[in-house]
């Protein structure tokens, strides 16, 4: 049996490796996605003081530390039985909205955009952010850099530090903002809304008006009918910071809706011996293998799943875009994996609109930013919507607030099985007997997982964001018969 390994070997320290086994006739026998890394936060958090968990757990990821910081801080509210002040909640959500603007911008322009703007078969030397800037113009390139930089300023101002913020406390936050800072945030928010609108227009012009791309989005190769998960507010609108987790089926019907404390009734995780990462699934349906459909417990937690799981967006412009997307895609839920990129841009617009709303909130500059907890700490669960999926932190402490047990279900982990299935399906559809394996074909396999923006690819958030691949084909005796490289100049 032949074996193809797609191994981003230039990113050696464990971020994902794809192995495809071929039958003798050249068709795909099976595909595996392996995560070769474990850092053990669930163990070494034991013995630590609870109030430091926002700063400890954010070291899981330096690209989305804000998500861990926020889930941990909310778990502390629950653990210490203290309600944050209204201003504190708003400051947390304000920082989180700025974070979403930067994160989604980075993903679209640097990671995903090159495939569409330059085309999946473009030369790897062009298929990167620099190519994108060359095509869409320096002005937009400058806007990308500026939007990121300004929203990072908000993160540092509100959160205390530019990377790995330090402001979260049970019952509130450590620092208030003043009127001068608020006014600047308001200006940045206005600019971010314009930037998000412009980005949606780029998506329209480049992707939606191109029939080849639209057909690709709607094709069976990139379709997966799994359950959809996302955090919603009390009106069932998308919310990143707070609310209940809602799951809808591939048919669009609500399957369940749960509060953070109830997560163990709904989610279970499976272990496989060939990867360090676990596979979460819906507990009440059970693990039925790597299959989609209503009878499989596999669910997705992506921007598209969040929109599928909600009844709409809480801000006006994002709501318009939401309606337009579903009318173009033929209704809800949309099970087209590549439409995740579109959903992400609608979320970008929502995050910018929410940022503006919060910056204009009369309470936002109030000094009333902390409630001091008085109850004995025991157990707490915090859930936020990380850009890459629903993020759950669960801590149990002794009466002094020292961590005894810690359980984490991290954004990308939710999507581990769907990612695997999307890659497998793309590989099976694209690698056929007699079909030449080209660089563009490998990139199309990659395009099946890029929509998830998996955190294993955090790395590719950097310039110029092209995932390097090397594919080696072995014959049944393990001899190398062919080697193909992508992205090597």
């Amino acid at each position, binding site marked *: 049996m032949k074996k193809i390994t797609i191994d981003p*070997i*230039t*990113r*050696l*320290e*464990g971020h994902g490796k794809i*192995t495809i086994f071929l039958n003798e006739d050249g068709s795909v026998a099976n595909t*595996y996605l*392996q995560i*070769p*890394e*474990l*850092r*053990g*936060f*669930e*163990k*070494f958090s*034991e*013995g630590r*003081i609870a*109030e*430091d968990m926002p*700063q400890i757990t954010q*070291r899981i*990821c*330096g*690209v989305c530390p804000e998500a861990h910081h926020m889930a941990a801080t909310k778990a502390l509210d629950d653990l210490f039985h203290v309600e944050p002040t209204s201003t504190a909640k708003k400051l947390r959500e304000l920082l989180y909205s700025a974070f979403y603007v930067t994160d989604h911008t980075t993903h679209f322009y640097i990671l995903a955009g090159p495939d569409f703007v330059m085309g999946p078969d473009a030369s790897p030397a062009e298929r990167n952010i620099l190519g994108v800037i060359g095509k869409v113009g320096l002005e937009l390139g400058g806007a990308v850099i500026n939007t990121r930089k300004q929203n990072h300023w908000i993160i540092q101002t509100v*959160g*205390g*530090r*530019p*990377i*790995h913020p*330090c*402001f979260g*406390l049970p019952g509130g936050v*450590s*620092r208030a903002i003043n009127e001068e800072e608020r006014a600047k945030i308001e200006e940045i928010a206005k600019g971010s809304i314009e930037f998000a609108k412009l980005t949606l227009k780029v998506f329209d012009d480049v992707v939606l008006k191109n029939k080849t791309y639209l057909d690709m989005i709607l094709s069976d190769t990139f379709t997966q009918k799994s359950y959809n998960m996302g955090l919603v507010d009390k009106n069932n609108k998308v919310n990143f910071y707070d609310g209940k987790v809602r799951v809808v089926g591939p048919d669009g019907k609500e399957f369940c809706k749960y509060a953070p404390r109830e*997560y*163990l009734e709904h989610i*279970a995780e*499976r*272990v496989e011996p*060939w990867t360090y990462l*676990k596979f979460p699934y819906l507990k009440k349906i059970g693990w039925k293998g790597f299959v989609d459909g209503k009878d499989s417990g596999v669910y997705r937690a992506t921007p598209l799943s969040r929109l599928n799981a909600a009844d709409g967006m809480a801000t006006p412009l994002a709501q318009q875009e939401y309606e337009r997307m579903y009318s173009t895609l033929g209704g809800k839920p949309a099970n087209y994996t590549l439409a995740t990129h579109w959903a992400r841009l609608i979320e970008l617009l929502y995050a910018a609109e929410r940022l503006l709303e919060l910056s204009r909130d009369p309470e936002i500059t109030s000094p009333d930013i*902390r409630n*001091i907890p008085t109850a004995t700490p025991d157990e707490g669960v915090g859930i936020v919507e990380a850009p890459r999926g629903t993020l759950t932190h*669960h801590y149990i402490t002794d009466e002094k*607030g*020292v961590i005894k047990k810690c*359980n984490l279900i991290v954004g990308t982990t939710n999507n581990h099985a769907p990612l695997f299935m999307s890659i497998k399906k793309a590989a099976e559809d694209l690698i056929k007997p007699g079909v030449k394996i080209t660089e563009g074909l490998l990139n199309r396999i990659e395009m099946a997982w890029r929509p998830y923006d998996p955190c294993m690819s*955090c*790395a590719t958030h*950097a310039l110029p*964001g092209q995932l*390097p691949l*090397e594919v080696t084909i072995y014959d049944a005796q393990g001899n190398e018969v062919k080697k193909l*490289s992508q992205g*090597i100049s």
Partner: protein
Amino acid sequence: MAKLKIALYWAASCGGCEIATLAIHEKILKLAEVADIVFWPVGLDFKYADVEKMPDKSVDVCLFNGAIRNEENEHMAHLLRAKSKVMIAYGSCAYEGCIPGLSNFYNRQMTFERAYIETPSTDNPKKIFPQTKVKVPEGELELPELYDTVKTLAQTVDVDYFVPGCPPEERTTWLALEALITGKLPPKGTVISHSIKAVCDECPRKKEEKKIKKFYRAYEKIPEAERCLLEQGFLCYGVATRGGCGALCPQANMRCTGCYGPVEGVIDQGAHFLSALSSIIDSNDPEEIQKIIDDIPDPAGTFYRYSLPDSLLRRARIK
């Protein structure tokens, strides 16, 4: 003048150091004028095999971030050391082990048991652990071996310079890059930062007399706006931590947690903090001192938050 050849690599890290490298913003263009990046798996498509083919010492500088956690990290550390004239441990993980180094309180078996069996959401009745080699129906799959102990870069290969911080601040990164660009390199072993003194030195909070009767946890009270956090009883680590960060955390009303590592000349940051603490506890009565100390529930994990692998303790002995 020939352009500098720079390599960047990440081992066991969170990616924050990569973002920090990019945080020099427009100065990246200045860097590009004088330097070529020859290897950067995160950003550029040069391959591992390309590095193997490079002649020894053909790379001028390697900025290496991340700790040494598994066999692949270790292999890359040796390879890049051989290819590079100057090896820099960039960021707290490579320099001291950092927060993932807290794993040295436990071992691989305990970590596996927690992650793959005990956690309440895990359903693993057959008690399966990930294996380095696994037979599947179609063939064999491999995973790199995870080590029991997290090591620093300098415990693995010879290191020329250290850049502190989790992650290093923009100005610290630029200080290191500037030294490289201008060729004005400090003596081997230097920790590159704007300060050799403690964070307190650059902290705007007012310092008076440090006499402490009671320690407070961060959630227990709101600190006074302008007064030294340690004097208020918060376990601010600034006294035992190298400056250069600009004292960001104390200015956000949070205690310093020590991410820039020990001050100049100190080997063990935790021991240094402990000795500083003992001099400010306002009591001579052993019973009272014990009571005051009892308010610090996790001294090892707090004093060695970023430096356990690099400390004299290095790891917990597990029987």
